[in-house]
């Protein structure tokens, strides 16, 4: 399953608010994709501290595509 948040036309802190709300209900194996025009370092701190992994890809139009998952249990 995958969920998408397009934060490119939202003013801060709306993208972060939506992402934090989505993380609250993100299930094991589910993926959350966030689209932004900047690197969300405050979000990365939250992800790092709370057991999420993410990949980041920069698209040609300057969009940062961030794909977030829960770290699988070891």
């Amino acid at each position: 399953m995958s969920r998408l948040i397009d934060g490119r036309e939202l003013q801060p802190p709306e993208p972060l608010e939506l992402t934090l709300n989505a993380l609250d209900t993100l299930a094991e194996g589910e993926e959350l994709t966030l689209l932004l025009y900047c690197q969300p370092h405050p979000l990365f701190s939250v992800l790092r501290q709370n057991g999420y992994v993410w990949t980041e890809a920069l698209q040609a139009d300057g969009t940062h595509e961030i794909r977030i998952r829960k770290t699988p249990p070891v």
Partner: protein
Amino acid sequence: MHPNLSFEQAPPFSVPMRFFVAAPWFGVVAGLLLAYIGGEVVSSRWTGEVLALTHLLGAGFLLHAMCGALLQFVPVAAGGNVWRPRMVAGVVQPLLGFGALMLAGGFFLAKPALLAGAATALLLGIVGFSAVMALALWRTPATGSTMLALRLAVIGLLVTGGLGATLAEGIARGWSLPFPALTDVHLVWALGGWALMLLAGVSYYVVPMFQLTPPYPAWAMRLFGPALFVLVLAWSGVQLIAGAEFLRRGVGVAGLLLAALFALLTLSVQARRRRRLIDATFLLFRLAMASLLCVAGLGLLMILVPVVGEDGRSGATLGILIFVGVFASAINGMLYKIVPFIAWLHLQRLGAPLTAMPNMKNIIPATAMTGQMRLHTLATGLLVLLPWLPALAVIAGLAFAASSAWLGGNLIGAVRRYAMFRDRIRAAGAYRES
């Protein structure tokens, strides 16, 4: 709230805010001082009164706001860890504050002891601040044009502080130094190597983020910082070589064209923003970039047409456009986005229930920002006319003092609202950090 999430310790809200809240009051003092001394003196940049005014703005207003912005920006936008931020802010801000006041007092009252004290305080503050920021900036894994610009800006700040302290000590102790040439080098490092470099680096990040514009072109972001740094270095070199007038003019023209390029690119991305929101930040940034274009135009005229360049009023207009039109406007606009955002971020980190979270737009009311922006624009216009109409000194000085006080009041209001919501969250029992 987000019960399953923990939030990394960021610099406390008070760390950048003590710089931000202090900054506008130097503008208030500068405006009142201008109203007191009158407009006849501004056409010579070498009078004690004018040096007091420029350093109240440069070492007071602008330096405070820019140091506060870096302290917040490096952890939040660049992922850098600032070493003991509360202690650093607690030491650096008073040093810069007292240093700027002593420096202005030393120039205005022609008191060598005040100049020597100011040189020590400002140098200690700047070296301490630069060392801590350099450590954070060189250790962060973040890369890219913003990071490069921030690193170059910190070098620019160090050189500015070193040269400034040398000049102030030199005046205080009667050293024999090439004062006019060294002053020009100090000025170009302050305005180009530090202030414009930092403005560009921060703009790459916050203009698209807060004004919903497309990103700056990648080639321009890669080019601007290094090119500006090389030109500032080259300017310093040719300034100290006797008889290098042609080279000096060439480097000056290149620097002004580069500044104009940055202004045009910012206006261009603003024009292509994805949501047509017009707010105080957007308009203040437009004012800053229009002022930067005027700086480039007037600067080129001064280089290419000797009669314009030799007129003290041209230099005074240029200085007012740079200090007030470009940097005070851009900082004013950025503060209206950065302060509500960091207030929101810190309240979020407390683990606030959603019902206790304020709307970010209510941290500083839009009407207060718009009103202050209009007064700042009026004050900028009056100040730009001042060298040509010295009788405007009282009204221009008072308008700038009032605008700065209004900005200060808006920022204090933001701190009060933050404290109110923080107390509500604590009362709700969801409190996480001290």
